[in-house]
């Protein structure tokens, strides 16, 4: 369990350092696979959790990375050239974020079973947000969004040991729709502006 949590944190760190789009998507793929593994471990092989894990694998390890990689192939010359926070600064901030998350969870829910998973998932959420706020590339922001979503999913998992299946289905569907819309938007962005740098969206402002 702790190994998986550490792997998750590692994946988040790597994401903060990645500047090639394809590698970021690959890291995300691995991260989602770890989430699925956590799902199986936590659920101790109940049918419900198995279904959730399978859904995670199909959607977050299968469809979403596939769709993202397809777009990335089109964006051959795109990479995160000049992020708001560089790789080293990002790593430092990410480390600070993890400390903050652990401290917060330690203060509020010290004795809860699986508080470690909770802390890790909170740091995932915050790092996802950080990723969105400090990167210019649309793909990187989508990756940040999925990271956040993974973190939120883990929070749900570790506090409730599985939400009702219908709600989980809803969440998965939500993510799927969101990502397909975002991929389409990225594609349009490339078409209209020859670039997927979101800072050019400032031009839309009147």
């Amino acid at each position: 369990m702790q190994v998986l949590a550490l792997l998750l944190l590692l994946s988040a760190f790597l994401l903060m350092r990645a500047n090639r789009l394809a590698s970021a998507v690959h890291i995300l793929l691995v991260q989602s696979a770890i989430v699925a593994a956590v799902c199986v471990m936590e659920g101790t092989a109940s049918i419900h959790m198995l279904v959730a894990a399978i859904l995670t694998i199909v959607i977050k390890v299968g469809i979403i990375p596939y769709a993202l990689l397809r777009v990335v192939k089109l964006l051959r010359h795109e990479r995160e050239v000049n992020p708001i926070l560089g790789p080293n600064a990002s790593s430092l901030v990410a480390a600070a974020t993890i400390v903050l998350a652990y401290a917060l969870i330690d203060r509020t829910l010290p004795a809860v079973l699986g508080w470690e998973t909770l802390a890790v998932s909170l740091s995932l959420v915050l790092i996802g947000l950080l990723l969105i706020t400090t990167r210019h590339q649309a793909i990187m922001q989508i990756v940040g969004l999925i990271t956040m979503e993974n973190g939120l999913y883990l929070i749900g998992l570790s506090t409730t040991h599985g939400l009702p299946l219908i709600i989980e289905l809803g969440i998965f569907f939500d993510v799927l729709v969101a990502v397909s819309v975002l991929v389409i938007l990225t594609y349009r962005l490339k078409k209209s502006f020859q670039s997927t740098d979101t800072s050019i969206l400032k031009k839309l402002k009147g």
Partner: protein
Amino acid sequence: MEFSLLYGLMLLLFATGLLITPFLGEKLKVANVFAHGIAILGSLAAVLCASFVFVNGAQAMKLPFQLTYMAFSVRVDTLSAYFLGIIGLVAAAASMYAIAYGKEYFKQRFILMAELYLAFILSMLLVVTVNHVFMFLVVWEVMSVTSFLLVGQENSQASTKAAYLYLVMTHVGTAFIMTAFLLLANSSGSMEFTALRVLGANEWTRNIVFLCSFIGFGMKAGIIPLHVWLPKAHPAAPTHVSALMSGVMLKTAIYGMARFYLEFLGIGPAWWGGMILLFAAISAVLGVLYAVVEHDIKSLLAYSSVENIGLILLGVGAGMVFMSSGLPVLAGLAWAAAFFHVFNHAVFKALLFFGAGAVVHATHTRDMEHHGGLIKVMPYTSVFFLIGSAAIAALPPFNGFVSEWLLFQSLFALPMALGGIGGKLVGAILISLLGLTGALAAACFVKAYGIMFLAKSRSALTEKAVEVPGLMLVPMGFMALLCLVLGVTAPKIMVLLHQVLVAFFPEGAIDGFASPQWFILGTAAQASGGLSLPVLGLVFVAGIIMAIIFYLYKGAGKTHVGETWTCGIIPNARMEYTATGFSGPIRRAFGKILRPRTMTVINANTSPYSGRRIVYEVHISHVVDELVYQPLNRYIVRLSQFMKEIQTGSVQLYIGYIMAVTVAVLIWSTRW
């Protein structure tokens, strides 16, 4: 006959129209007849529903499909039925008119217009019949949005601007209405109209509900100072829609107020009624003043709607004052006067809009300065417009006279309820203001009729005018007939209004008001010797007969046909009285309020001896615009300048805000 069958028939008709019309896309003529024909039938079904309720008492039903939190239940009591009947009657006439008038829009998204028109009528019919807060708000919004789109139908810059102004204002109004309803629902624990009460709630809640509902519905009704959208939006819409908006849509706001003040809120403190009286008086006087100086015929009618809403609200306000001072008979009378005027205004304002639309249809201009002499080419239209003008100027034997008469009667009794020297003074001032309004309204419509139809043609546009087709004349004729019928059968209408109001007062408390004594000149003691309306009507008829007898006795006399003597010059259109000239004395007399700015441009290049070209313009300044809306506008612009600093347009920064808040909340939640 089941009520649900009739109501279902109405819904079914409109649903058929809405579903099938889009498929007639290519055959515009068929679509025109089909959509508007369905609208006529549906509106008549609504009238049937209303009469069914008046015969058999209040009806309630639930539709078979129900959603949680969105119970579609219908309750038609006599109050709903009264408004339902008015909407149905006017909408049926307007739809018939639209068959002929709609042809002008064949090239301008016609199918869309017909669809919106159907949805607009249906939403108005639903507004007055649904029995559930949520459903009410939904259909209210549908009504606002469809009318917004119809205002923007002509797609000109002016109409688009008017439409957006309307959209903003009406949504602000809806926000207030929503607040009022939710506060009510909260304190009564139910969303059904039948259960909404705040009698048990504290004073504060009741006062806030009152204020919110007054502002919200007042926005829709167009009381001054919330009226700014009305004179812009109503003229911009196609004429049959303008007729419905002015004649009927404004009345849904009166319906909302009646529901709140008669049923939900119960008897309130006297200042509620007083406040309504204040704004009603302002709306009536200012509305008619702006109408007089207007020379765009449809804007003139729109301002006159503001005035008439003021008159209706004078009745409502007086009714509320009487209710809070425990005079139910007088309260009933005032409310009845208001409701009667609702009906009357719907009829004659629709008639006048139809007439104005016919003139616009024939001349293609709304500017009265270009009309003139139309009585010769459009005889039927001019007669119907004259009847409408007489009715709105409150001349007997037409309907406007009766309701304004009743309004006077109830205001005369207002000092009784107010008490104290101040109250008596206020009562007297209100009566004189009502008198002033009536006189100005008469001047306004003398001007409208005289400039448009009499004298000689003022421009080439009117010379080519011909009478409009029969399909436009029939609804006008019907409305004109209704003006007369409502005026002559007033006591019958009073019985009807008694039925409307009786449920909202204690048993037997208002039985007195439907008696004929209110139609009699003088006090009740002289009742046997007074003048009643039928007698007035008889005098009128007798006068006509006398005139005919004189005519037959004396013969036609000698007739010389020739030009008017103008000292040897052949009179031309530029010597005629203009609309601006006609309203000149009024503009000067009320100069303090209207503050006209005149601008004279003289072309100095021409010689003063051979005649100079002079352009003369008058602009009226609108007090409310200058005192309220322009400062508000400036303030909002300044505020948005400030907001611009935060809104850089960078996605990262926006999400950064979210992140900052998230982290702050997380930290705060651990109470460090």
